[in-house]
């Protein structure tokens, strides 16, 4: 356990500068947009010069940039992300309302893509170069080229518009009054299409990583040993080859979490799914830069947390992780 703990501590310390850099970056973007926000606001409500000046005062636009950065950091430390002009609400509350929905979508598609993708990767990698392998690898490449949002549209067209099997948009039936399991089932039905659209692309990726990992592991000495031990082919494929090839797939899971979060923005927009992505789209439409950057910051924190979890899982799967650190103590 101590080996995992050491690793966690190292990662947590390492993520502090990352978060600081991102915060400074968002601050600059905020600065660049600052004037616009006042102008946009003024343009919308038709404010006069006096009100504009008052707004500038209120938003601290007349102070030195360094002071403003300090104020910004101080506010962030208190989880105060500012006020959303588009929704007329505090940003942090909005984010906390939408985050669970996005996590649900991401979790579902990750489970789908990782599970199915690595499973099919095992099927393909069980005999590298076989017809089955070539069909699956090629299919994965084609799937990987499909733009997620367009796939979403096509799925929606087919399964909702034409067949009417699944709901077209939203996260649950509005004002249905459903509770308990019935409500969960309703949400699950709403999740099918967006989660599939998001998952299919990553499914292709995990399939390919698993497959090429297995092709590599087959050439290793310890596989020759396993064959010399006369183990059943099934056991060699699953317990020796796939078990080792799983490691790079898990690594990929962490690497891709940021991309998946980005991809969910468009998918949520396609399906009107009320998560952070749809919120980001509203922020763009409402020219609400503080809200948009709040979403960026929350995404970064989410990505860091997901990567921490992935690191722990990896350490559980690979006994060699952190062996040096432990030895050095």
């Amino acid at each position, binding site marked *: 356990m101590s080996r995992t703990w050491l690793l966690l501590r190292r990662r947590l310390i*390492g993520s502090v*500068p*990352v*978060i600081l*850099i*991102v915060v400074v*970056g*968002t601050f600059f*973007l905020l600065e*660049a*947009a600052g004037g*616009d926000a006042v102008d946009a606001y003024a343009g919308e409500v038709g404010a006069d010069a006096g009100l504009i000046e008052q707004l500038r005062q209120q938003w601290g636009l007349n102070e030195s940039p360094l002071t403003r950065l300090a104020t910004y950091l101080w506010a962030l430390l208190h989880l105060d992300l500012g006020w959303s002009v588009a929704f007329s609400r505090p940003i942090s509350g909005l984010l906390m309302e939408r985050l669970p929905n996005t996590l649900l979508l991401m979790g579902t598609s990750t489970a789908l893509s990782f599970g199915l993708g690595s499973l099919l990767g095992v099927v393909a990698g069980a005999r590298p170069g076989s017809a089955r392998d070539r069909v699956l690898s090629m299919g994965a*490449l*084609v799937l*990987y*080229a*499909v*733009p*997620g*949002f*367009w796939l979403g*549209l*096509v799925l*929606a*067209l087919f399964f909702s*518009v034409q067949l009417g099997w699944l709901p077209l948009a939203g996260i649950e039936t509005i004002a249905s009054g459903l509770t308990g399991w019935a409500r969960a089932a309703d949400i699950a039905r709403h999740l099918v299409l967006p989660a599939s659209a998001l998952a299919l692309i990553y499914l292709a990726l995990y399939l390919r990583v698993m497959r090429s990992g297995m092709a590599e592991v087959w050439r290793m000495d310890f596989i020759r040993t396993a064959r010399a031990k006369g183990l059943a082919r099934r056991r060699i494929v699953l317990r020796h080859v796939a078990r080792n090839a799983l490691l790079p797939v898990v690594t990929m899971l962490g690497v891709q979490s*940021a*991309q998946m*979060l*980005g*991809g969910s*923005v*468009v998918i949520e*927009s*396609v399906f009107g799914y009320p998560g952070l992505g749809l919120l*980001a*789209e509203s*922020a*763009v*439409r409402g*020219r609400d*830069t503080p809200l*948009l*950057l709040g*979403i*960026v910051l929350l*995404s*970064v924190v989410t*990505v*860091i947390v997901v990567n921490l979890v992935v690191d722990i899982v990896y350490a559980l799967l690979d006994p060699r992780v952190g062996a040096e650190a432990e030895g050095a103590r």
Partner: protein
Amino acid sequence: MSVLRFLRTPEGAVGGFLLAALAFVALSAPVLFPGDPLAIVGPAYLHPFANPAFPLGTDSLGRNVLAGVMHGARTSLVIGLAAAFAAIVVGSAVGTLAGLFGGVVDEVLMRITEAFQTVPAFLLALAFVSVVGPSMGTVVVAIALSAWTAPARVARAEVLSIRQRDYVAAARAVGMHPLAIAFREVLPNALPPVLSLASVIVASAILIEAALSFLGLGDPNVATWGTMISEGRNVLRSAAYLSIAPGIALMVTVLAIYFAGEGAVEAASARRIAS
């Protein structure tokens, strides 16, 4: 020689053919469809194959879908290539400096790289374009802003391994300036593995551009596939072809790039085995 080897792999042949066809489409678009592809040229909602003048039909305003798709190829390819070029140039520069100087420089540059990698690429692009305003240029910068990290990491790793080799030591011995060593001796040798990322970077740049314009953040003055898909989305029930046609174009383009990339990797590994 190596081009031949590339074309002899199945992926290379398919990818090469498709890319050539795409380049032809992109180059011939202004000749075949001179004038603004966004101009209204006919009746609205003409279905595909109904009128020989509009093989892919017309959209809700009466714009020629085929002209849009062909001009859209131009936009996609230009933005994809420009963003990938910028990302590779910036990334290899950063990676080379980090690898060559090591120490604090390396630490700082790698932290920055890590920070950029932690921000979802699409959200970063979205935020940047929405603050700066949409145009071809800003979209290119927005995409390159997150795409440079992979080349930076690869370049750094390459430089770290090249740094120890003889010719670098020789250049140092004759008193070459470290920066001259970096960009004349080390970078050219570190470049091939970095360039092998090109296909993936171009493909993802094209996909990000499409997603941006799908959300209304593309350059409003040019035809883009993302915008076309987005406009078709409102009439999915009655005129699905408006979203389908540009979507297929987008998919074929990305697929062609992946195939070409696979072909190049295979051709390169074939050469390694042969030599």
